[in-house]
């Protein structure tokens, strides 16, 4: 068993490493990036940008280093310069990058001119790295500095300012969907083929087919825009708190940034995430309850003359929830992804929206940091699921 967990841990570390390399390469391989705007300025010729300026800016973003070195510095914060052993410096003449690449226009196969890097005017050596600022590495929790969204501020600052909002959203909706979804699933299974079961399963089916982004918009229409136009009670949508005060019929005056304001703004995004989750959770609980209810030990419990309530709550539910626990654990990182869409509809200032902003704005350190956090969460959830499997159901042997 221990061997299994150790191997599993090792596998997971490998997954993290490979996905970090893959995404980092993907983001940094592409031309453009933070220099895209600069090139346009250079082309319009309104400002005199010399080659040295470009070299300086490239060095600022570490774009002058070759990809493996750049990745290493981002991932583990190394190399920071020549290796010093016993007063002597080693590897100081290793080429790690190119300060001024030679760019020439080359005629490509399609008959169009395109800029290609054909050589290098000035190389960067390992010894040049001494004294350059470097992060301590994402492994040690240092995500580096933001490129654009909050220029030169630590990425972690940006993420920490957004994290509570996402946790609010995800935590609340998960709790709600568990509290509502499980009882609904149980009730539906116990009353199989009843009118309630029929209506409920069709609604849950529709819910799981409903795209979140469309559902969010429909919710805004139904509970925010249309009632507001009509002068009825409505729920504010968009952002996590309003900029100025407003009045809602029946609820009265709401001051901007007050507790009441924040709660009102939470309602719609939480509702969207919750309803989508309920349709998944309750369908699952219903299915596994139905399966358990067919088992012999349930018949035995009934034959003993136990109350139906006891049979369901004690004998059936406990066994039905075993697979469900693992499902819940595994949906948690998925919720971060799900929150990307919900947050973008409601302009909710959380991590998901930050991720979209960072990708759209070439702020790769931020995007990479968030991706890495989500990947770590997913990996932990996968491990946790395996562990939970064996704890809640000792019959399962992992090998």
């Amino acid at each position, binding site marked *: 068993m221990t061997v299994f967990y150790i191997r599993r841990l090792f596998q997971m570390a490998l997954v993290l490493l490979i996905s970090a390399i893959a995404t980092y390469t993907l983001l940094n391989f592409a031309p453009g990036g933070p220099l895209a705007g600069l090139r346009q300025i250079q082309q319009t010729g309104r400002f005199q940008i010399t080659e040295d300026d470009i070299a300086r800016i490239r060095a600022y973003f570490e774009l002058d280093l070759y990809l493996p070195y750049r990745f290493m510095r981002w991932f583990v914060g190394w190399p920071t310069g020549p290796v010093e052993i016993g007063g002597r410096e080693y590897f100081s003449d290793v080429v790690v990058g190119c300060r001024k690449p030679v760019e020439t226009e080359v005629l490509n196969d399609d008959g169009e001119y395109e800029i290609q890097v054909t050589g290098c005017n000035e190389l960067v050596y390992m010894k040049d790295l001494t004294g350059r600022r470097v992060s301590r590495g994402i492994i040690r929790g240092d995500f580096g500095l933001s490129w654009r969204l909050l220029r030169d501020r630590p990425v972690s600052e940006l993420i920490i300012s957004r994290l509570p909002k996402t946790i609010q959203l995800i935590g609340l909706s998960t709790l709600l969907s568990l509290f509502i979804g499980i009882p609904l699933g149980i009730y539906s299974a116990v009353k199989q083929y009843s009118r309630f079961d029929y209506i409920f399963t069709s609604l849950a089916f529709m819910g799981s087919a409903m795209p979140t982004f469309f559902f969010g918009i429909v919710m805004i229409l139904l509970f925010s825009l249309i009632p507001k136009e009509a002068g009825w009670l409505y729920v504010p949508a968009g952002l996590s708190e309003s900029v100025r005060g407003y009045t809602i019929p029946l609820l009265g005056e709401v001051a901007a940034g007050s507790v009441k304001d924040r709660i009102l703004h939470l309602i719609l995004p939480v509702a969207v995430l919750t309803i989508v989750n309920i349709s998944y959770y309750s369908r699952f609980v219903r299915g596994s309850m139905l399966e358990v209810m067919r088992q012999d030990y349930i018949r035995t419990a009934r034959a003993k003359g136990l109350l139906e309530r006891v049979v369901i709550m004690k004998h059936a539910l406990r066994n039905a929830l075993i697979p469900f626990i693992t499902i819940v654990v595994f949906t948690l990182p998925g919720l971060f992804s799900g929150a990307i869409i919900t947050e973008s509809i409601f302009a909710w200032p959380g991590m998901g929206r930050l991720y*979209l902003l960072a990708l759209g704005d070439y702020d790769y350190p931020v995007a990479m940091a968030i991706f890495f956090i989500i990947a770590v969460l997913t990996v932990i959830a996968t491990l946790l699921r395996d562990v939970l499997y064996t704890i809640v159901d000792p019959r399962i042997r992992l090998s």
Partner: protein
Amino acid sequence: MTADSQVATLSAEAITIEERTPFQIVLNRFKRHRLAMVASIVMLAIFGITIFAPVIAPFKIQELSVNKYFAPWGTVDEETGRTHYMGTDNIGRDYFSRLIYAGRISLTVAILSVIIAETIGITVGAISGFFGGWVDAVLMRFVEFMLTIPTLPLLLIISSMLLRNDELINIPDPILQFMGNILLLSPRDSRNAVLIVLVLAGFGWLSAAQLMRGTVLSLREQTFVEASRSLGASNFRIIMRDMIPNAMAPIIVDASLGLAGYIVGEAALAFLGFGIQDPVPTWGNMLSASQQFMLDRPWLPLVPGLPIFICSLAFNYIGDGLRDALDPRLKL
């Protein structure tokens, strides 16, 4: 004719039931699933409309009606006498025509993704399950690895990279030409669509591969496989003639549920601004565009949003019906 033989014919007629092919049996079972039937009819109608898009749509997708921004439903163009059935959008393009062409693009992207994903999935799964050993270990570790990476964030990274950098991937001209011919776009405009198909299919084949592997593993022990091996059939023949046809039931169900997933996935990418971009209409980017005019025109988002929902729901029902029809014991 004697009395005896009469009795014999009678009883033979009484016990013989009409001969039915497996296809008819499945069809009859499918027909019993009423919602799946309704869904099939709805989807056939939508397919019909999008196939005949150039005939039905009065306008071209990029045709601007000058000075007619947000024209109301049913406005008639004075010069040509054509009707804007659903009015025009914020820069005067005919909404109805764009909606139909968008459907053509969204559905084509979803169908091509499904075909590619299932083909890769079937191949990988069949090889993995049939040969076992280290081939199986390597392939399945890779599939597991891909499944551990959070999909949506990675999809966003990949599509943002691919869409921004034209030179990153060179797509052969014949493919662009082919896609352009289906979508009725210029080869250059259909580039995005090809990329999105690649991105969606690149992640979609994983579940199909796992499904196929499981089925092949259980089929491998069946006697008919043993029989054809003892008759001297090659591995390739066994896979092609025995394994794949017998494993089709779960794959077909997976494909129809997959169609729903790809339609929603493509729309989600376009909605977030990382999918097919604006001059080319898709339901996703039309929905995204309608969001900014929601305050004044609250009904606008429903026009591109409902088709996405309807298609997703319909393919889910069809998948459900197919599951019941093909193999009642099957659970996905």
